[in-house]
């Protein structure tokens, strides 16, 4: 459902997570693995909630409505979300969606956040894929490893 198409002029852009990501909550971080780009990311739980919301196409205001906790201004969350969504899009972890109608038809049930912390990417590393040649084969004979 994700795509590279631009939204029609005058509409609020919809975004969705790209489909090939692996994502797991491990301790207090959400770890996201993107093997198409050979990157792994550590994110805070708010960022994980944004990615969870973006399993279906959503606009920034729609995401904000789901994850803004009571007592926090939605406008505050929207501003921080705009920045973070742009960061995710630049990393290729989310993409703009082609149609608004599709997004509205597939919006998920709201998620509840206990407290608001701005979503943040904490770290990233390059990873290898199984098809990569990792190290050059050693030309030396290593007697330690020969029977």
């Amino acid at each position, binding site marked *: 459902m994700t795509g590279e198409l631009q939204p029609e002029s005058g509409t609020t852009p919809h975004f969705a997570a790209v489909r090939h990501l692996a*994502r797991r909550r*491990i*301790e207090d971080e959400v770890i996201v693995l993107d093997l198409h780009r050979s990157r*792994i990311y550590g994110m805070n739980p708010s960022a994980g909630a944004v990615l969870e919301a973006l399993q279906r196409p959503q606009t920034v205001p729609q995401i904000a409505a789901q994850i803004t906790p009571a007592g926090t201004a939605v406008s505050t969350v929207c501003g921080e979300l705009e920045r973070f969504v742009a960061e995710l899009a630049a990393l290729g972890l989310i993409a703009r969606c082609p149609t608004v109608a599709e997004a509205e038809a597939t919006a998920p049930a709201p998620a509840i956040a206990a407290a608001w912390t701005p979503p943040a990417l904490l770290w990233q590393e390059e990873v290898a894929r199984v*098809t990569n*040649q990792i190290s050059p084969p050693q030309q030396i004979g290593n007697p*330690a490893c020969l029977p």
Partner: protein
Amino acid sequence: MKRAFAVDLALAGLPPFRLESDDSRWSEALLPRYGPFASAAPDAMPRAGAKRLRLRATSPPPELSAVARLLAEPVAVETLPSGWSLSTSWCRIAFDRRTGCGEIAGPLHRLAIDLALRHLLAEELTDGLLLHGALLAEGERAFLCAGPSGCGKSTLAGLLPEAALCDELAVARRAPGGGWRAWSLPFWHGRPGCGRLAAIHLLEHGPQAARRALAPREALRRLAPEVIWPAHDEGATGRALELLGALAAEVPVAVLAFRPEPEVWALIAAPATAGAAV
């Protein structure tokens, strides 16, 4: 039918990987690397879960000077209805998950077999990870020494000949009774062995030997680049991610700075505690 070349490879405690061909020249091409892990295959079909790879030589062995260039080529990965294929200009590997059989067509050299086995291992490890590291062992305890190319894996293995089991890739699997076990692999040089995974060391060069324990979160981050991730099976990728989280939390992980001196073994083998950053 009796094959001219047929061996069963015992790797990481998994069901055997059978290599077979009607061309007897494969024996000379493969046994220098895989011999210690191989046994002559019986005529009967391998046992349940075994993988069977048919080898077909499409060209003579490459010149040694050309090997690095071949290895640097990108590999095209294609997901097939019931399996996958890997293609380069010099080889094609196709594997059918449903039947457990595949074919490797390439030069009469171990290069394509290395590639196929790495791929199969990463996919087949439902309870473990394929890791970029040398494996050393003493008694029942095994120590994975991981790190990028040039960090000293082969140097360390060469310094510690009695302990070294392999110098490039190893497997860590959850043990049925708890904890983790590590297994050596025939990359680049290896002899069969396994043991309880007592610690993981992330190697780096330093002015003197020093070990710094990592908390699980930092351990996960530092280990992630050393995992050989399954390339195109999303279920396997997610599973590997979970396993990495467990490995980082359950096995002591430390950064080990070292000079190429055998005395580093004392630090490698010193007791360590999982999740204990210092």
